[in-house]
C-alpha cells in the first residue's frame, strides 16, 4: 500500500527567524506556530486529530502529551520525531503514514527553537552533553569522540569536505557559489535573517576559516524561530484553500557518527531520494524546485549528487554550469536556505518543507519559482546520517 498522494500539506505556520528570544518558552512558541498553521489551513483546533512534535527543553519526555494538552487537541495519533535536521521532513512523512493507514485524518507538525542571548556570551554547553544539551553518558559518542574535541557538527562536515576534495576535487570558489546563490534568494525573502545583506564569492572566501576548509559564511548561523505544518488526507485537501500533495517519501539512516559512516562522500541520501522518486513516479528532470538541507555548503554539494541531480564527483561542475538562484535554471532553496534564512534548531530543517510547500502552492511571493508544480525536499540529520526525502506536488 503506497502512501503516494494519500496526504497533503494544507497549512503553514512559520516565525521570522530572530537571533534571540528573551524569556520565551519553546512550549509557547510551538503552540503559537501551531495555531498559525491551523489558521492558515482554515481549520479549527477541533479538526486536528493527530500531532507530531520534537522533544524540547521543557518536555524532554512526554512531549506529544504536553503539546496536545497545551493546545487542547484530542489526538488519535501523537508522537515525537527524533531525526535531527531531518525531523521536519520526517514529521511530514510520519503524518502521511498515519493518515494513509487510517489512524487519523489531520496532523499538526511542530518545531521551534528559542535562544537566549546569554548563551552567546559564555560556554553554550559543556562537552559531554548532546546537541540538545542533555547529558549523554555511556554513549560511544561521549567516550570515543568528545575526549578528542569532536563536538558539535562543524568538525564533521569539515572532514567530509576534506575527504571530498581528496576523492573528487571541488574548489573553494565552487562551494562559495552555493552560499552566494542562497544569499541572493534570501535578499528576495523579507523573512530571511540575512535579508538585505547580499554577499559575493570573495566575501565568503575572505570570511574566517572556522574548521578547514569551511569558512564562516559556509556555516549556518544558529537562531530562534518556529515552523509548523498541517497535513491532512487527500479527501480533506480537496476542500482546502491551498495544498501540496505528498507524492513520495523515502528515508535512510546508516550511522550516528561520521567516523563510522560507510562513506564520507556518498551519503544515505541516495537511498532516501531513490525511494521517494520511485514512490512518486516522477523523474529528476521533472522537479521544478529543490529544497535541500544546507547546514554547510558541502552538504548541498553532496546532496545534489546523491539525490541524483548531479553526477557523483561532479558537484563542483554542476554548480559552475547551473544558476541556483530562485530565478535561475536550477532553483535551490528559494527562501535562502538555512545558510541565509537561518537555522532555528529543528525549525531550520522544517523551513525546507515549508518553502517547498509554499512554492508548489504558488505562495512564495517575490521569490516564487515560475511554473512550479513539483518540489524535491531533503532533510539531513546529524552528520549526513538521518535522511528523509519528500516529493511534493501542487495540489490546489
Amino acid at each position, binding site marked *: 500500500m503506497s502512501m503516494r498522494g494519500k496526504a497533503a500539506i494544507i497549512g503553514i505556520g512559520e516565525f521570522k527567524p530572530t537571533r534571540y528570544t528573551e524569556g520565551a518558552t519553546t512550549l509557547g512558541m510551538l503552540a503559537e506556530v501551531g495555531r498559525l498553521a491551523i489558521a492558515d489551513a482554515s481549520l479549527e483546533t477541533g479538526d486536528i486529530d493527530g500531532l507530531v512534535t520534537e522533544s524540547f527543553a521543557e518536555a524532554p519526555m512526554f512531549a506529544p502529551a504536553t503539546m496536545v494538552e497545551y493546545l487542547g487537541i484530542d489526538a488519535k495519533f501523537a508522537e515525537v520525531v527524533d531525526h535531527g535536521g531531518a525531523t521536519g521532513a520526517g514529521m511530514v512523512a510520519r503524518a502521511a503514514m498515519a493518515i494513509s493507514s487510517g489512524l487519523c485524518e489531520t496532523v499538526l507538525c511542530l518545531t521551534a527553537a528559542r535562544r537566549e542571548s546569554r548563551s552567546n556570551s559564555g*560556554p553554550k554547553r*559543556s*562537552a*559531554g552533553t548532546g546537541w540538545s544539551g542533555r547529558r549523554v*553518558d*555511556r554513549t*560511544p559518542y*561521549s*567516550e*570515543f*569522540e*568528545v*575526549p*578528542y*574535541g*569532536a*563536538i*558539535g557538527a*562543524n*568538525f564533521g562536515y*569539515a*572532514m*567530509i569536505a*576534506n*575527504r571530498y576534495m*581528496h576523492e573528487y576535487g571541488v574548489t573553494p570558489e565552487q562551494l562559495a557559489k552555493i552560499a552566494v546563490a542562497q544569499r541572493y534568494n534570501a535578499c528576495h525573502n523579507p523573512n530571511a535573517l540575512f535579508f538585505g545583506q547580499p554577499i559575493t564569492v570573495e566575501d565568503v572566501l575572505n570570511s*574566517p*576559516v*572556522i*574548521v*578547514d*576548509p*569551511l569558512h564562516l559564511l559556509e556555516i549556518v548561523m544558529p537562531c530562534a524561530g518556529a515552523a509548523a505544518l498541517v497535513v491532512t488526507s487527500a479527501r480533506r485537501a480537496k476542500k482546502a484553500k491551498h495544498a501540496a500533495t505528498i507524492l513520495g517519501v523515502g528515508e535512510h539512516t546508516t550511522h550516528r*557518527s*561520521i*567516523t*563510522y559512516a560507510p562513506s*564520507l562522500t556518498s551519503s544515505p541520501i541516495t537511498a532516501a531520494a531513490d525511494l521517494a522518486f520511485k514512490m512518486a513516479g516522477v523523474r529528476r528532470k521533472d522537479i521544478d524546485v529543490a529544497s535541500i538541507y544546507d547546514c554547510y555548503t558541502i552538504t548541498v554539494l553532496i546532496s545534489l549528487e546523491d539525490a541524483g541531480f548531479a553526477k557523483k564527483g561532479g558537484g563542483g561542475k554542476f554548480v559552475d554550469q547551473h544558476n541556483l538562484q530562485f530565478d535561475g535554471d536550477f532553483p535551490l532553496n528559494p527562501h535562502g536556505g538555512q545558510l541565509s534564512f537561518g537555522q532555528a534548531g529543528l525549525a531550520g530543517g522544517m523551513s525546507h518543507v515549508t518553502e517547498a510547500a509554499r512554492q508548489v502552492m504558488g505562495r512564495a511571493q517575490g521569490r516564487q519559482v515560475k511554473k512550479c508544480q513539483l518540489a524535491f525536499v531533503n532533510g539531513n540529520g546529524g552528520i549526513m546520517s538521518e535522511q528523509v526525502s519528500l516529493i511534493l506536488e501542487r495540489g490546489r
Partner: protein
Amino acid sequence: MTEPTEAKASAPYMKPLPEPTDVTRPFWDAAKQHKLMIQRSKQTGKYVFYPRSVSPFAPGDALEWVEVSGRASVYSYTVARRATAPQWSGDEPYVIAIVELEEGPHMTANILGCPPGDVRVGIPLQVSFEDVTPEVTLVQFRPRA
C-alpha cells in the same frame, strides 16, 4: 608546534575524559598499558571499533579482543581554527581526524607531533598513547616516520 591534548605536567587536565563501561574497559585498560586492543569478529574475522556488546556482522557471531598494529593513516581531518568546545579554547589550531587503522576500522583522534598545516588525507600514522591523567590514557596518533 602545537600538541594540545598532551598532558601538561604543571596544569591539571581539564578536558572531558572517557568514562569506561563494562563493555569498553578492556580498550582503556590496554591503552593504559600502551597497547591498542580492539574487537574482532570470530565468525568473519573482521575488526570492529568502537567496542560493542554484540557483533554488528551476524546474529550468532561473537567478538574477541585482539591487539592490533597501531599502524594507521589519515582518512580525513580538519584543523580547528576555532575551539570546538570551551575546554579546547587556547589550543587552536588543532587537528581532529578520522584515522583508518591498518586492520580496517575508523577511529576519532587528534593528530599530534606535526604542524596542523602538514596533515593530509592518506599520510601514514602510528598510534601514540597519551597519559593525560594517572587514570586515563588517550589513544592518539602521530605521523609515522
